[in-house]
């Protein structure tokens, strides 16, 4: 499967990658986006099977990316990994079609719990 990791922080992209590996999902094909616009562009061009997105990014926030993809008829499995975790954000994410919401800091166990049903 192809996974798109969208986060403006290079450090966090690296940590998400490492945690995926630690949780046993290291052999999937990973692509990265460094802001919201890039996330939309890459999601369209590369057709990933899963998008793991930050919320707060330059150019376009993660929720805007999700809404834009859905508005264009793109139903890629999409969820958030973010340090922000208010109930209003979780509701907005769910309403927009988000499949999961992981709060930073996270552990490999949390990744396993969320991604096992998705990635097998």
């Amino acid at each position, binding site marked *: 499967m192809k996974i798109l990791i969208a986060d403006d*922080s290079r450090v*966090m992209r690296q*940590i998400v990658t490492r945690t995926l590996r630690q949780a046993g999902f290291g052999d999937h094909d990973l692509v990265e986006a460094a802001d919201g616009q890039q996330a939309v562009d890459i999601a369209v061009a590369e057709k990933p099977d899963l998008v793991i997105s930050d919320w707060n990014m*330059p150019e376009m926030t993660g929720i805007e990316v999700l809404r834009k993809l859905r508005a264009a008829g793109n139903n890629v499995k999409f969820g958030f990994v973010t*340090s*922000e975790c208010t109930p209003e954000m979780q509701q907005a994410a769910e309403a927009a079609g988000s499949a999961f919401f992981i709060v930073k800091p996270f552990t490999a166990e949390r990744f396993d719990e969320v991604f096992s049903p998705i990635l097998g």
Partner: protein
Amino acid sequence: MSEPVVTEGDLAEMVEQVWVSYLDPEGVSPLVQNGEVKQPTEVHSTVSITGSWHGHLVYASSVQAATRAAAAFLAMEPDEVGQEDISDVLGELANIVGGNVKAMLPAGCFLSLPTVVLAPDTASYYPAAERISGLYGTWAGEPVSISMWQSVKQEASA
């Protein structure tokens, strides 16, 4: 004075999660609190919160502690860590703690992207804001602090 919206205990809990998850997964080198508000730091990062609550979350440390944090985050050796690594990790630390703090604030807050300053925390000044809580201590003997600053004029700028 009433209890701040985010107390020192709240900050300690969030910071412990960051240490357990990224900086000290083995649980051998925690942040040891010393309450030294004026301990000197060399680098810092900030996220600002606006909306229904106005203020800033500041993470500050020595260069050595920041280098150690970068090495832990990036799975590198400390001597491989460059300035860009330190800046990115400092920004991420403020972002993670700031994001967690935001969840404790009234609904309708917005978190800024982080800013990083490779200078002591005293180099940044937050006009019309006062420190409402802070966690001060050492990590492997090096100074680290996390502090919350609330705008005292939020009714004027809300």
